[in-house]
């Protein structure tokens, strides 16, 4: 069915050769936190820092001109990938900064009595930013309830949507369960019932496979979308958001500094148009160029084949864990990976703490993450403090799943054996 070859795909990621050379077992199942970095990304950044290092947007000399063109070309690459106008792409230091810029900018218009609805499956970045900036204006932050599987409860949401709702903050794909929100459906419902609401989508977990959604961002009934390069085979230190220009034009900037102004004086300072308004100071130039290289790399991939491969692995892992007979194992969000779901397998085993499982699995080079995954309200929804997460990317193989399953079994034996 799919011709995708994960072992060939590994050739794009120098980490595998490096770990082989070091003789280190390497079953990287933590791509939901940060993916590995693709070779063209590392090369593009080292090349830029070697040959064209200069500040952007400031000087007219060759190096500055080249750096600016490379930086702006990265913006073009991102705009093409997400199908947006280039002026609607704002480069940031990551999803978190992006969401805070959006929260601050949109909160300017809020007042007491206004409501901000925040999906309870959100990452803290899409919760705390609203608690800080919207609450300062007197708005109420209300969670959107979840179904037992951790998906948005559409009936509950429908009942919450009124004229008073000014913001709805959603996560496109949960970083715990992998469940995907149907943005068309939920967005249309919000547009219909809460016409004053801006819809903000945390895309950190969906951006890596954007072509899967077969739509341009502006064609969705949403207003903002944020993501981070380090979850897209790109560098740390850079991310972006897309926003509708008519909304961005009315948003004050969270960060003041160089480049984002039209003129500065002690009598009053004028702010530049978006996206510049939100890009205060020297941007993460080299990282933006690495981000562009990463998205260039993503653009050439067969995302459908990769997702099919990833989800097959996830389903196997989930099914095997759920079938461990004597154990009380919960797969957060259920074991069904047949549709609308990214390959994140989070699980909890009664009596075995995630940190202990992860630490013991590390013995055999299995890299998983244990904790609340910066999603404490969702953990609370599942009645848990923490879970273990195996997150899967295209370079993972059935061998990685076997290693994970064996490592988890060994850990359980040790932890339960005493």
């Amino acid at each position, binding site marked *: 069915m799919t011709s995708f070859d994960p072992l060939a795909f590994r050739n794009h990621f120098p980490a595998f050769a490096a770990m082989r050379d070091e003789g280190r077992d390497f079953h990287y199942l933590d791509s939901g936190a940060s993916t590995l970095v693709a070779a063209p990304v590392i090369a593009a950044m080292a090349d830029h820092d070697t040959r064209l290092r200069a500040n952007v*947007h*400031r*000087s*007219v000399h060759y190096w*500055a*001109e080249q750096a*600016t*063109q490379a930086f*702006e070309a990265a913006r073009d690459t991102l705009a093409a990938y997400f199908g947006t106008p280039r002026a609607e792409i704002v480069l940031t230091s990551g999803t978190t900064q992006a969401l805070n810029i959006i929260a601050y900018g949109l909160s300017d218009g809020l007042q007491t009595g206004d409501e901000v609805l925040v999906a309870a499956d959100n990452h803290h970045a899409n919760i705390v930013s609203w608690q800080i900036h919207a609450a300062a204006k007197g708005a109420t932050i209300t969670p959107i309830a979840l179904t037992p599987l951790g998906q948005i409860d559409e009936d509950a949401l429908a009942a919450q949507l009124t004229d008073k709702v000014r913001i709805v903050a959603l996560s496109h794909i949960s970083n715990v369960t992998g469940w995907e929100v149907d943005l068309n459906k939920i967005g249309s419902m919000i547009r219909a019932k809460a016409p004053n609401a801006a819809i903000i989508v945390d895309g950190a977990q969906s951006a890596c496979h954007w072509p899967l959604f077969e739509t341009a961002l502006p064609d969705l009934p949403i207003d903002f979308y944020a993501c981070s390069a380090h979850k897209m085979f790109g560098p740390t230190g850079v991310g972006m958001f897309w926003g509708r220009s008519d909304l961005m034009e009315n948003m004050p900037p969270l960060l003041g500094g160089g*480049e984002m*102004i*039209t*003129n500065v004086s002690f009598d009053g300072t004028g702010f*530049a148009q978006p996206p510049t308004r939100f890009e205060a100071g020297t941007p993460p130039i080299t990282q933006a160029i690495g981000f562009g290289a990463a998205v260039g790399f993503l653009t050439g991939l067969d995302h459908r084949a990769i997702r099919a491969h990833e989800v097959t692995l996830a389903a196997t892992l989930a099914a095997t864990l759920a079938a461990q007979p004597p154990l009380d194992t919960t797969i957060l969000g259920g074991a069904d990976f047949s549709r609308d779901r990214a390959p994140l397998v989070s699980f909890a085993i009664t009596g075995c703490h995630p940190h202990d499982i992860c630490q013991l699995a590390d013995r055999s080079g299995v890299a998983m993450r244990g904790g609340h995954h910066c999603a404490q309200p969702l953990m609370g929804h599942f009645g848990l403090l923490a879970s273990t997460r195996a997150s899967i990317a295209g370079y993972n193989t059935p061998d990685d799943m076997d290693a994970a399953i064996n490592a988890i079994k060994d850990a359980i034996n040790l932890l339960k054996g005493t």
Partner: protein
Amino acid sequence: MSSLDLYQRDLLRAAADASHAGRLPRPDGSATVNNPLCGDKITIDITLAPDNTLSAYTHETEACVLCQASAGLIGSTLEGATATLITETHQAVTQVLEQGSGTLPTQAKGFGIFAAVTDHTARHACVLMPFEALTQAVKDAQAKTGNSS
């Protein structure tokens, strides 16, 4: 390299053309625009004829040679022009900057010298600033005279 072409004789001549420098005593419209990158400033005064053509134009420019040349060329080629021609020229110059070539209206062929600026994206704004100020000044005049095309 291409900087050589950038500062060609025609450009310097256009920049030095002082015939439309200064302020108008009784403009119909005015506008000041500055460049956030370098702090440059241009103030344009205009009058509009009843048929909305540009009957008078002056500029006061604290700016680089590119901006001065652009402001000078507007004076020497667009005084008397219709609003349509101004807009067309503005668009064509933008295209020339972005693509290195473009079809300029016959009266405005002189702006072809800016093709040499294409590779210097940091300088595009210098060339376009006078056009932005002109557009704003025209709007200002139309708002004041209640006359809109």
